[in-house]
């Protein structure tokens, strides 16, 4: 018996470890909204680095742009362009602040319309894989956030918090394949489930007879208990009806361009 164990020790070790990891994964699937000690530690450890990287990348980008302009300026007229450069730099800063101001105003107006208390947060990171769609924001338990809170932007729903650390949180985007949101077509009130498909959404369980057209706005139905009712989700992109079958096949494009997302609002409570 001992000899057998020794002879097949590599195979046995491999099987035991594989089973253990599969069990760990299955267990964690049931605890989706629980942040484990390991994950919390890694997120806590990474948050300051991600904030710094975000800052460093911004400064490098700024310096690079300004440097390029400087080279260009030297080629034309050094003295005049120097002044021009400073003015441009200031103008750029003003434009940047003004753009940020505009974005934040939009965001605030959107949240004001919702009449729900919300907390602003900045996007500091994205998912480290190519198949999952999550982002990291710079607010966590220290700011009073917890798992499950809905996250929105001025254009509509972003997603919900699934992992949380003291100073950062991970947000599952509506385009992730594991995201499913109870939704309805605003014009006809047809119900369905908006499921993520990476870049767009598919609307499932929309009845075949329902009148749905390209360009229709899809909003949250408020049924799942996570998102308030009536938040914009996506615009219907294509509608296909098979010869047979109970439901239509619909795809929709999110109202938000997630690659350009910089600031978000976390809805932290019920009605004010």
């Amino acid at each position, binding site marked *: 018996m001992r000899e057998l164990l020794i002879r097949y020790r590599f195979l046995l070790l491999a099987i035991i470890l*594989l089973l253990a990891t*599969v069990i760990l994964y299955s267990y964690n699937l049931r605890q989706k909204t629980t942040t484990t000690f390991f994950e919390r530690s890694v997120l806590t450890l990474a948050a300051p680095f991600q904030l710094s990287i975000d800052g460093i990348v911004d400064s490098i980008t700024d310096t690079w742009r300004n440097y390029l302009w400087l080279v260009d300026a030297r080629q034309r007229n050094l003295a005049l362009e120097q002044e021009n450069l400073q003015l441009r730099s200031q103008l750029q800063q003003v434009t940047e602040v003004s753009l940020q101001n505009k974005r934040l105003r939009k965001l605030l107006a959107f949240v004001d319309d919702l009449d729900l208390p919300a907390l602003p947060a900045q996007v500091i990171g*994205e*998912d480290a894989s190519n198949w*999952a769609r999550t982002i990291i924001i710079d607010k966590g338990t220290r700011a009073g956030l917890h798992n499950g809170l809905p996250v929105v932007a001025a254009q509509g729903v972003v997603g919900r918090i*699934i992992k949380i650390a003291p100073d950062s949180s991970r947000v599952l985007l509506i385009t992730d394949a594991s995201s499913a949101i109870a939704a309805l077509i605003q014009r006809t009130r047809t119900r369905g489930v908006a499921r993520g498909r*990476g870049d767009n959404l598919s609307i499932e369980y929309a009845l075949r007879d329902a009148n749905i057209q390209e360009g229709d706005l899809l909003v949250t139905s408020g049924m799942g208990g996570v998102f308030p009712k009536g938040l914009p989700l996506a615009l219907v992109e294509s509608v296909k009806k098979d010869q047979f079958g109970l439901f239509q096949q619909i795809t929709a494009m999110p109202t938000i361009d997630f690659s350009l997302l910089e600031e978000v609002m976390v809805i932290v409570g019920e009605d004010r």
Partner: protein
Amino acid sequence: MRGFFLILFTGMLFALLQSSVLPLFLPPNWRPNLILILILYLGLSENLSRALIAGLLLGAIQDSFCGPSLGLYVSVYLVIVLATRVLSEQLNTESPPLLLLLIVGGTLVQNLLIGFYLTVFAETAPVLHVLLPAIPQQLLTNLLFTAVLLFLLLRFQRRFGYRSGLAGLNYQSKRHGT
């Protein structure tokens, strides 16, 4: 021990790069999986126990930076480390281009396993719409970044490899094969 912590530190650095820097320049399908490259390198050059422990920890780190559940990459990387170990006994592991060949296999196996786990255990079949079309881009970008990292590693190894306790493809860890 110093080499082991260097591996974990590199893994953490790669995870930060993948989540905070690369998204600024590359769309999701064109972002390389740097940790996978590290895992294959470990499988080729380190001894079994060290490669296994590092593989499991790196999987947990990657799980913390992506997707909703801890355990997915832990399991996927375990399989990849074990498969690389079994293969490495049959191959000439001192050849640097071997890593390029393995990255092709590693990328395919990783996508296959992720697809399998997410479809069977998590019931998120739509993820296949995201995973499958991205495989060619993933292969290309992983190959390109592996070539760059390999070039840097071989230079770095000649200078600091022995002192840092870092194993390499030309000069494997003294514990390799144990």
